[in-house]
């Protein structure tokens, strides 16, 4: 490769879009090859070209956008209510040592009852409906969020609170000026974890409750043996969550931490 060539390559490699899409190129190529060579029977495995055709078809008929908006709307409502419930609850519990002691074991336990395990009882209560799905997503988000907030408040260094007190801050101001910012990285982390579970719960709920949405689309396609549509659904889901996490959640978490120079680990959710 000429020096000019390597320079171009290195320039390209620096752009985030290229870095992100880079590894998918060999994978897609391999995928295409496996399908073209019919290494697996076509009933079980189709190539990217077929999936693309499927995508075009679904887009044209407006089905995919419909399902997509259904899924996203449910997620949105779930997140909204999850935050509306989880944030105040988390801070209320976190600020009261008594409340913390009383509720911590309960929180742990309810967090342990897999969100998806709530689907059957929720279906009994609300039927195969949107409410059922939203309930599960809200539940999925609330508990990790509350647990993270409580833990986050606990790890605010006592000295910061003392410093604020010896500078004349009232209890309310300590909450606003010290506790809230101090717990913010944990809140970001809790939101990220909660949404990770919520996203998966959404897919499972759609499959089980089965009215609409990408999860339903995949399951229905499986039922009729339409492999391309199943593949398509998976890719759409993957892209959606990856985009949500990489473009919003992770930067938010990182921003609170980096800007304030706190030391944290970045884990994948």
């Amino acid at each position, binding site marked *: 490769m000429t020096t000019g060539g390597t320079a171009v390559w290195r320039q390209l490699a620096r752009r985030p879009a290229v870095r992100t*899409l880079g590894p998918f190129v060999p994978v897609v190529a391999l995928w295409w090859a496996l399908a073209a060579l019919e290494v697996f029977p076509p009933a079980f495995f189709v190539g990217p070209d077929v999936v693309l055709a499927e995508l075009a078809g679904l887009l044209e008929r407006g089905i995919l956008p419909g399902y997509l908006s259904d899924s996203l709307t449910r997620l949105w409502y779930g997140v909204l209510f999850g935050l509306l419930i989880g944030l105040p609850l988390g801070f209320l519990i976190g600020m009261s040592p008594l409340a913390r002691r009383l509720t911590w074991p309960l929180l742990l*336990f309810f967090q342990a009852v897999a969100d998806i395990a*709530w689907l059957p009882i929720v*279906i009994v209560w609300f039927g195969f409906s949107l409410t059922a799905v939203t309930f599960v997503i809200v539940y999925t988000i609330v508990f990790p969020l509350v647990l993270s907030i409580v833990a986050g408040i606990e790890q605010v260094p006592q000295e910061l609170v003392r410093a604020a007190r010896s500078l004349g801050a009232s209890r309310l101001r300590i909450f606003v000026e010290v506790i809230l910012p101090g717990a913010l990285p944990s809140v970001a982390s809790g939101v990220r974890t909660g949404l990770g579970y919520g996203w998966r719960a959404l897919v*499972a709920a759609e499959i089980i409750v089965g009215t609409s949405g990408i999860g339903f689309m995949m399951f229905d396609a499986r039922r009729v043996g339409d492999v391309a549509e199943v593949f398509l659904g998976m890719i759409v889901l993957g*892209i959606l969550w990856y985009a949500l996490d990489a473009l919003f959640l992770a930067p938010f978490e990182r921003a609170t931490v980096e800007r304030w120079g706190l030391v944290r680990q970045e*884990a994948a959710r």
Partner: protein
Amino acid sequence: MTAPRAPRIRSVLWFLAPFAALLAVWAAVVAATGVPMRIFPQVTDVARALVGMTVSGELTAHLAASLRRVLIGSVLAVVTALPFGIALGASPRLSAFFAPLLRFSVALAGIAWIPIATLWLGYGDGAVIFIVWNAMFFALAYNTMLGVRRIPLPLLRAARSMGTGRLRMFWEVLLPGALPSVVTGLRVGLGYGWRGLVAAEIIATGAGLGYALFLAQKTFSTDVIIASMVIIGALWLIMDRLLLAPLERRTVQRWGMTVAVS
């Protein structure tokens, strides 16, 4: 000297007290409002269901099925993801290149694979185990890779300058060095795997706790539903608190490495 032991018993009691309170409130509310069992069972109904399931052997059968699948899936995941993650992490170029792909796979891991898994493997054990493996594998591999990348360079250099061979590097430097992230990966992965298990069992099989839930829902047997939920919750608590947390304590914390917040 009883002082160290007494706090232990006290802390266990403190842990259980809220549950006792919850049960009391539950019983009182159901009794007071007279809500039908079809909508919400009484504590005694659930207790009876639990006993019934145990006596009839149903519970054991379901438990065995679920636990077996989790065990197989997670062992497979650990055995495949650790070497893969470490090998990937050991090469800065490879890990930088493939990181987005791995992240994408984590985004997809587990439940989203259920339809395709049932297509490829049919309904039954195979599909469920696949889902558990799938959910754990990607999360664990990604976190392991991150963990290896985070090993401080001086540590790696020190090992290399002492002539550490590749295999030894793996066992004695890379694996322990990546341990905090590996443990995080285990926790996250098992969390996804567990949820994947329940979902897969609801959708795809004829035995297991998820299936028990599914069946009970069809017959509106809320007492069995709640009994199964309690068991699922207790199981996960046991797995997380009695297995994972001590694992973390005995390795990561004992060696004074940073601890991930969970």
